[in-house]
């Protein structure tokens, strides 16, 4: 502990941090631009100037940048010194010389850090009387809008984009007061994290382009704390609504999960909620007419009580919805939406976590590990935020070295990067094809999934061997690391991979290490579904004929081969689908019932590390059908059982039944405060207190303002009425603090800068069972796949945009979705007598499919890559062996392009 005298008042503070973060932690308002809590200091903007004094006798002091000065044992500073105040004011004056003052038409207005800082310093008179400099803006793709005239040259964008996120195509050009931040030429930003620029930029240079389509000021939104639904990581998000439409997603700080950032799929995938593919009205297959609510619900209830029902749950539906379906159809009749492979994979993932051989690592904790092995997972595309975190993790050792060798503080970002140069701690990637993280890897190797698993077992054996000399480089590195981490996942549909990962952590544990494990999965609630412990689809077959099948928020045709899915869909007498978005399954159903998407619903999902997180309804849609699935299913259950309908069924009610029936979920009630919670007797408002137009908004329908909708599921109100102040972390709908309108107000919500939120980061880790360690199984469960001539092993390639079901429906994401292709290496191309861009004919299950060929030189001879999750590649749902017709056969190869 050190003592910091701020304007002669002593404070107990941590030593070694910089003065700026210390002052902000203490609650002082000190303006800044170039510093960012996640990215440290560079001292460029000169905005955070303060006076520092040698000792109590020093009255003159010295003007310093608080972000560049460490807290010493005893430091004396002044924030209010006239020199410092004047200087801070003049920095704003400089920045304003060229800033266009177009706040009224700027997307950032009302949530602008530059506005906040300008007001904070008190600059208000303009002495610069010359024309302002102007720039030509660039087209940066469908996600981010560029408006360079507003730039105040804080350099945060390039520091995030290049240094933090490893992007290559955004840079700083030109010099003096004509510095330009952009691409070399117009074009789509390549980074998967470009959306964060909208939050990183202190003003309106980089803004959310999708928001522009339906713009609203921050103060006019209705917000709710939510959880991203587009991969298994469960990043925390803030979802914003205006005029009954989901309009914006921003990151919601969670010090255990995503920190300050989210990926572009999470930020821009939300438009699926407004897509033309939404199901808004119930429909019968035959007549395809809408029916009134009472009729159809009663009709379904009647159906359910007269026939035997089977339910299929979903890894992208909430725990509550899955549970309500299980309750409705009965325990023995409820199945997951998974194929056998997926079922086994997700169970295996759960088992590894439950065994507790390794530390279960949260997303943010990855940063603490100094030797990382990635076994068959293309993180950038399957769990993007994990890739961003790995990029930070590989800096850990070099940063520690810099501290030891030349006493550099961890926040001294520019100097650290100069000192570290290209050095990074160990990262090993074993994958069938090249990935974006390869550039920071110590060693990469490309092989088939089975070979990767086999290599994993070899590493485990090498670690386990008691020989003094471990020959394997990866094994040596993991053994020598302070904190070794194994990252793997289910994306290659390869069970031995998970077994190999488990063998490695067990071997490490045996050698006295504390290894960490991080397993990514496919969907936002995959872990939750795995924990429910329900049988896979294949077990349902016997019960399906003549049954009434209820399918919950899932597309069987994504999880099963078309043949298999057709088989299932043909067996039951009736199929009822509850979903919010159209899919092959929903279009084949006899009855489809619309339900609410995450923005219209409450629920709990469990992320890949077993953390249960609550997402809250953002707004009450006019369409009364758009309610949580669990609400419909509970209603049906009551009708079916002939019980009284509970109009006020809240999420707490269903959660308590859930926990009783499935005790492994004990704790989910604590993922968020219950609906009874009040602060000073008040609810927490979802809308900022400056929310405008409430009385006018609906005056076209009725001049009397309707009663605002009541939220029976959460302690939040749907309006701006309620508690003013910092709410508990789990029910923080948006970040705002007096004088801090921008997202930077997050500083006021944290215990210390960059630390946990005031009453802890929200979310509850459920997987806690601590079973005994089972012996290591080195038996190679990997059987060698033997291929016949002209046969290849089809391996999925994921793309951040397009491979995930929901986000792919968002127009901006759809624009960025790559065209499907078949990736083959030089050897395979030669063998098939094919050239790049030729059409290859794939034979699979007796059908032929055509895809253009792309050369992927790095891959194995036996591997053919295929883009996963696109409609055109839907025939591929798990690893299969395919036959490709060689061109010399002269059947269907389209060589016309080369003629």
């Amino acid at each position, binding site marked *: 502990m050190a003592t910091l005298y701020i304007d002669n008042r002593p404070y107990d503070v941590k030593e070694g941090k910089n003065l700026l973060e210390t002052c902000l932690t203490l609650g002082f308002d000190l303006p800044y631009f170039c510093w960012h809590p996640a990215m440290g200091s560079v001292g460029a903007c000169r905005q955070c100037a303060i006076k520092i004094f040698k000792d109590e006798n020093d009255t003159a002091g010295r003007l310093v940048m608080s972000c560049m000065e460490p807290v010493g044992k005893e430091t004396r500073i002044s924030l209010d010194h006239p020199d410092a105040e004047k200087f801070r004011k003049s920095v704003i004056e400089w920045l304003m*010389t060229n800033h266009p003052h177009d706040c009224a038409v700027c997307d950032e207005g009302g949530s602008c850090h530059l506005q906040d800082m300008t007001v904070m310093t008190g600059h208000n008179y303009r002495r610069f009387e*010359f024309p302002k400099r102007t720039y030509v803006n660039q087209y940066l793709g469908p996600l981010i809008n560029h408006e360079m005239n507003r730039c105040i040259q804080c350099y945060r964008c390039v520091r995030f984009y290049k240094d933090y996120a490893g992007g290559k195509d955004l840079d700083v050009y030109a010099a003096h007061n004509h510095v330009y931040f952009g691409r070399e030429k117009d074009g789509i930003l390549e980074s998967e994290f470009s959306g964060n620029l909208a939050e990183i930029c202190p003003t309106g240079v980089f803004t959310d382009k999708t928001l522009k389509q339906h713009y609203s000021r921050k103060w006019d939104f209705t917000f709710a704390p939510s959880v991203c639904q587009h991969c298994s990581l469960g990043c925390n998000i803030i979802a914003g609504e205006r005029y009954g439409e989901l309009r914006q997603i921003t990151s919601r700080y969670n010090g255990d999960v995503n920190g300050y950032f989210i990926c572009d799929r999470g930020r821009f995938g939300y438009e699926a909620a407004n897509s033309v593919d939404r199901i808004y009205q119930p429909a019968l297959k035959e007549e395809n007419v809408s029916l009134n609510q009472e009729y159809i619900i009663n009709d379904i209830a009647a159906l359910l009580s007269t026939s035997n029902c089977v339910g299929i749950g979903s890894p992208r539906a909430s725990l509550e919805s899955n549970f309500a379906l299980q309750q409705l159809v009965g325990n023995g009749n409820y199945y997951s939406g998974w194929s056998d492979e997926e079922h086994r994979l997700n169970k295996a993932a759960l088992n590894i976590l439950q065994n507790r051989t390794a530390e279960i690592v949260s997303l943010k904790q990855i940063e603490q590990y100094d030797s990382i092995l990635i076994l068959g997972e293309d993180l950038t595309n399957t769990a993007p935020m994990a890739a961003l975190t790995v990029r930070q993790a590989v800096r850990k050792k070099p940063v520690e070295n810099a501290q030891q060798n030349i006493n550099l503080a961890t926040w001294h970002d520019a*100097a650290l990067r100069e000192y570290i140069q290209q050095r990074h701690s160990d990262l090993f990637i074993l994958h069938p094809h090249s990935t974006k993280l390869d550039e920071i890897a110590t060693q990469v190797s490309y092989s088939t999934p089975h070979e990767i698993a086999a290599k994993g077992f070899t590493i485990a054996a090498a670690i386990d061997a008691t020989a003094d000399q471990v020959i394997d480089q990866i094994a040596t590195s993991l053994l020598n690391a302070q904190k070794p981490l194994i990252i793997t996942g289910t994306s290659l549909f390869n069970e031995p991979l998970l077994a190999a990962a488990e063998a490695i952590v067990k071997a490490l544990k045996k050698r006295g290490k504390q290894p960490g494990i991080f397993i990514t999965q496919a969907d936002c609630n995959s872990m939750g579904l795995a924990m429910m412990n329900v049988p896979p689809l294949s077990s349902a077959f016997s019960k399906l004929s003549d049954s009434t099948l209820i399918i919950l928020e899932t597309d069987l045709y994504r999880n099963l081969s078309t043949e298999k899915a057709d088989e299932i869909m043909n067996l039951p007498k009736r199929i009822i689908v509850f979903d919010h978005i159209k899919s092959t399954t929903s279009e084949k159903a006899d009855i489809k019932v619309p339900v609410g998407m995450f923005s219209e619903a409450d629920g709990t999902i469990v992320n890949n590390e077993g953390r249960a997180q609550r997402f809250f309804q953002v707004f009450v849609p006019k369409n009364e059908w758009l309610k949580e699935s669990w609400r419909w299913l509970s209603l049906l259950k009551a009708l079916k059982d002939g019980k009284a309908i509970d109009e006020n069924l809240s999420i707490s009610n269903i959660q308590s039944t859930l926990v009783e029936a499935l005790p492994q979920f004990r704790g989910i009630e604590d993922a968020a405060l219950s609906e009874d919670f009040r602060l000073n007797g008040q609810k927490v408002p979802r809308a900022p207190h400056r929310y405008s137009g409430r009385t006018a908004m609906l005056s076209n329908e009725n001049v009397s303002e309707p009663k605002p909708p009541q939220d029976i599921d959460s302690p939040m109100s749907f309006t701006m009425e309620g508690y003013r102040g910092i709410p508990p972390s789990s029910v923080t709908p948006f970040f705002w603090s007096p004088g801090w309108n921008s997202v930077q107000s997050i500083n006021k919500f944290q215990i210390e800068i960059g630390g946990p939120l005031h009453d802890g980061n929200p979310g509850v880790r459920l997987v806690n069972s601590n079973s005994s360690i089972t012996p290591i199984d080195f038996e190679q469960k990997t059987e060698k796949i033997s291929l016949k001539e002209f046969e290849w092993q089809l391996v999925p390639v994921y793309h951040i945009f397009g491979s995930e079901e929901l986000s792919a429906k968002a127009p901006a994401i759809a624009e960025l979705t790559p065209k499907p292709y078949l990736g083959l290496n030089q050897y395979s191309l030669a063998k098939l007598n094919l050239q790049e861009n030729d059409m290859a004919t794939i034979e699979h299950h007796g059908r032929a499919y055509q895809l253009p060929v792309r050369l992927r030189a790095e891959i194995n001879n036996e591997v053919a890559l295929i883009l996963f999750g696109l409609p055109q590649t839907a025939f591929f749902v798990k690893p299969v062996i395919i036959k490709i017709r060689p061109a010399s056969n002269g059947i269907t190869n389209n060589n016309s392009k080369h003629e």
Partner: protein
Amino acid sequence: MAQKILLKNINIPGINTFEVYRQHGGYAAVEKALKTMSADDVVEEVKKSGLRGRGGAGFPTGMKWSFLAKPEGVPRYLVCNADESEPGTFKDRYLMTHTPHTLIEGMIVSSFALGANTSYIYVRGEMMPQIRILEKAIAEAKNAGFLGKNILGTGYDLEIYVQPGGGAYICGEETALLESLEGKRGNPRIKPPFPAIAGLYGCPTVVNNVESIAAVSWIVVNGGDEYAKIGIGRSTGTKLISASGNINKPGVYEIELGLSVEEFIYSDEYCGGIANGKRLKAVVAGGSSVPILPANLILKLANGQPRLMSYESLAEGGFATGTMLGSGGFIVMDEDACVVRNTWNFSRFYHHESCGQCSPCREGTGWMEKVLHRIEYGHGKMSDIDLLVDVSKKIEGNTICPLGDAAAWPVASAIRHFRDEFEWHVNNPKAAMDGNYGLANYADPIPVVEEAS
């Protein structure tokens, strides 16, 4: 005749070739240092010599060398700063053009002293001929066994690389130079850490000016004490001065520090007096960034003593009446020169060369340039003058690198000493466009003699 060290043999034909340079005692320092001295001995001699950095800041070279961190297993680098681009300074270019081996010899000895096995000469991009000259000189030296592996059989290895810059003035700042050398944008770094701890590629690095390095050879051959005998006080040795402006004999002169300014301007050995029989109005004594001084203050100190060409004497009087030796860019202005226009010109240069990293310099230099332009072109307001002072004061000392100071000082000093000329520009816009304020009250104190000549 004063003693010449760097330019002693400058008039010998072919001195730019290895053979002629060697015949005239060249590379003796390498032989002496590598064969008979330890690295620490060389550092000690340089310390004794009192040699101060010739790039502008005047920091003692020996002391800079002794700060170099020497961690195990980490390479150390010597980088020669040949990015000479200060307006009014052209001494390094002259040296490199005419006697490149002086620099190469100095580089070898200095690298040996610092334990560097790879050294770089970072040359301003516009100096393409000099780059070729240096590369040829390096090839010659390598041929003769003075570079490469196992130099002169002493077991010492050294490679020298010439790296052209992109032409940015800021890359003459040592940390921006290192950034540029690493292939990045030439933005200065924040110190600490200093290059001596973490410089090029994160390794301990010394960055020295061409002239400083060139002087090391002589110091090694003749001893630091001999060097310290030349000059005056703490300003030891000789200095190259690039003299330009309204003088009879512009060019590069090697002077012994301590020469009087008056002698330098008026003697025939050096500048040869003001051209066309005009009178001296003002001098920028050390390159465009140092404060401008009117004739009366540059020739005489406040106490009436003559001002000397030395670090201390030129700085005497602080910012009120003094200036700096800087890089030795000596710009002389006669009675017809317009201080406002000159200040605007400098200001335009600093605005253009500001790297754009930190706010005060990035925005302030552009603002000052615009205001000065307005005054010069007859649209100025009286309040502009105070605005300039205010902006320059806020820039000064508050930027990451010294470019902010360099941009602020010429403006602040011009207004300090020539305020009436600025006011005249504001009050007489038409006259200012057509004519000149003239000498006014800055009369050089010795006009009669010069007028007679």
